[in-house]
């Protein structure tokens, strides 16, 4: 599937084409990275731990969007709506029936899958812009339903959700949350990577490339599109469910169109068509406001701008997104690959032309 990215390494079996980690060095690095992730919460302070939790939670949603937009090539502007659908399913089931998390989590996933199916249906007739617009309509409709529930049931400020509990033990501590979210994010990433090297994933890439050709190759374009919507929406709704428990609070205000834009930005800034990109983009987008805050403090402007922090954030965020779109459409992953290629090629600067090596 991927081009070998180590010098002197040649594949001799087809199975090696499918391996997630091909060389021993990469396996060692992956093991080291996993160990670092496991040790991290014991070394990090409360703020760093909270940031890590936010990144891990965001990564689930970002990877889901990457599957749909980056791989299957279907534009979605309804991501916040789907997160809201998951969160509200959790909140409503908890408030109305006192359902425990092992009921709300699958229920959220089911609602997400159903919404994905319903809102994937227009994708069979619509392309590009028109599809983006119908997903935008999804956003407004879900938010409306949520707001309707809030006002009709008298939870006008939002729904409080108790932390999930397993046999009397409550998931409350930030460190415990870290491991839960790490497991969720890791499961999502592994699930996605695995799906992408299966028949479904290859079908998604094919319809992204060119639908007519994919159809001619015997891929059911309809099924591929719908499955992309269903899988992505399901994962997103699960992220929404986790979001509800993590925040302990569900309210429509949290799921504005800006949240969708943030998730889209994660995918863009990270780099289209790469799971690594989705994760890098999440790290960037989540840490960005904190970075801006730090910059403002360093510049001594923190007090003057305290009232308009959100405005500074919006401007800087818009500017960074524009800069990435104009100057680095490949995103962070493009930068990372260039660095890799520089080391791989050294002392040469360019790849040899195809056929001359």
């Amino acid at each position, binding site marked *: 599937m991927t081009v070998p990215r180590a010098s002197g390494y040649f594949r001799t079996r087809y199975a090696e084409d499918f391996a997630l980690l091909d060389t021993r060095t990469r396996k060692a690095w992956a093991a080291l990275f996993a160990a670092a992730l496991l040790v991290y919460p014991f070394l990090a302070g409360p703020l760093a731990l909270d940031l890590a939790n936010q990144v891990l939670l965001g990564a689930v949603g970002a990877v889901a969007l990457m599957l749909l*937009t980056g791989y299957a090539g279907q*534009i979605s502007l309804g991501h916040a709506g789907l997160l809201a659908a998951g969160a509200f399913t959790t909140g409503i089931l908890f408030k109305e029936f006192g359902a425990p998390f092992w009921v709300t989590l699958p229920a959220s996933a089911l609602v997400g899958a159903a919404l994905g199916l319903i809102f994937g*249906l*227009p994708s069979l*007739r*619509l*392309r*590009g*812009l*028109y599809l*983006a*617009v*119908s997903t*935008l*309509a999804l956003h*407004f*409709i879900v938010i*409306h339903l949520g*707001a*309707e529930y809030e*006002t009709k049931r008298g939870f006008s400020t939002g729904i409080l959700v108790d932390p999930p509990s397993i046999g009397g033990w409550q998931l409350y501590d930030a460190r415990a949350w870290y491991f839960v979210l790490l497991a969720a994010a890791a499961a999502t990433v592994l699930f996605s990577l695995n799906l992408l090297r299966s028949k479904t994933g290859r079908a998604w890439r094919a319809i992204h490339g060119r639908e007519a050709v994919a159809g001619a190759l015997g891929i059911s374009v309809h099924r591929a599109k719908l499955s992309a919507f269903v899988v992505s929406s399901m994962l997103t709704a699960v992220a929404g469910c986790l979001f509800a428990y993590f925040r302990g609070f569900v309210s429509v205000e949290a799921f504005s*169109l*800006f949240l969708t*834009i943030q998730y*889209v*930005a994660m995918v*863009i800034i990270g780099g289209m068509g790469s799971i690594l990109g989705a994760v890098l983009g999440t790290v960037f987008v989540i840490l960005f406001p904190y970075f801006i805050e730090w910059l403002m403090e360093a510049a001594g402007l923190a007090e003057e701008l305290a009232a*308009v922090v*959100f*405005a*500074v*954030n*919006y*401007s*800087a*965020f*818009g*500017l960074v*997104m*524009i800069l990435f*779109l*104009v100057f680095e*459409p490949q995103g962070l992953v493009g930068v990372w690959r260039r660095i890799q290629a520089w080391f791989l090629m050294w002392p040469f600067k360019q790849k040899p032309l195809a056929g001359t090596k």
Partner: protein
Amino acid sequence: MQLAVNIAVLAAIYALISCGYVLIYRATRVLSLAHGELMMLGAYGLYATASLFSGHPVAAVAAAGVLALAVGVLVYFALMWRMTGESVLAAVLATIALGILLRGLMALAFGTQTRHPLAELGWTNASIAVGEDAFVSGVGLVLVLATAAVYGLLFAFLRFTRWGIRMRAAGQNPLLAAQRGIGLHGIYALAWGLATFTGGLAGMLIASDAGLESTMVVIGLKAFPAALVGGLDSLAGALLGSIVIAAAEVLMVHHVDPLLSDVVPFFILLAMLIVRPWGFFGSREELDRV
């Protein structure tokens, strides 16, 4: 009767905004999701010129109009021309990013409290009786008249003037148009300028009627189903779509539930996308082109 007046005013608002979506889409094949913010920028432009030219309200309004036109051209040359030839997604995302940037900058420059440009100009918003038991605000009446004028002028511009014909040609087939000696960048910049001008005009009038605050962006987004229901590449469609959406919204809010105001346009949009995705008057092959 009052309902009919409300529908007419709301339809005028939507029509004035949605012609901007149509102009940009028709010429450049880009959907501008920054239109709500550009509209708001036009309104803030009026607020700024009103205090600058205090005592000369007509000059202030004219200056604000020129400013809006200039902003549109600037947006094209500063950002959107780099996006020509990129994928549809990249161009749309660029407009989203522009919207966020503008929203932040406007909050930084003008603060977040509600402004009243009309009071700044020294005019009042009188209530005018229509028929026996219906009323329309003065600004509402101006809105309807301005929309009629803008649409009349746009139809004439696209049909009879040299630049209008060039714009249609560039929208139909950019490659052929360029080979016939039409400067695409000039046309595209003009489309952005006109769209921002009409959007800015809508922003100024809405701000004069209801005050200027950040919720205006939502009105911009709600006008967008109107453009799509009518057909994204048809001005007449935008007009019809606006009337349909406005009528549905006013009637639903009046008879069913005020909370529905924000979703009704999108319900109609979804229904339209399922039944007739290219809209009332849109051309059918557009669907395959995007």
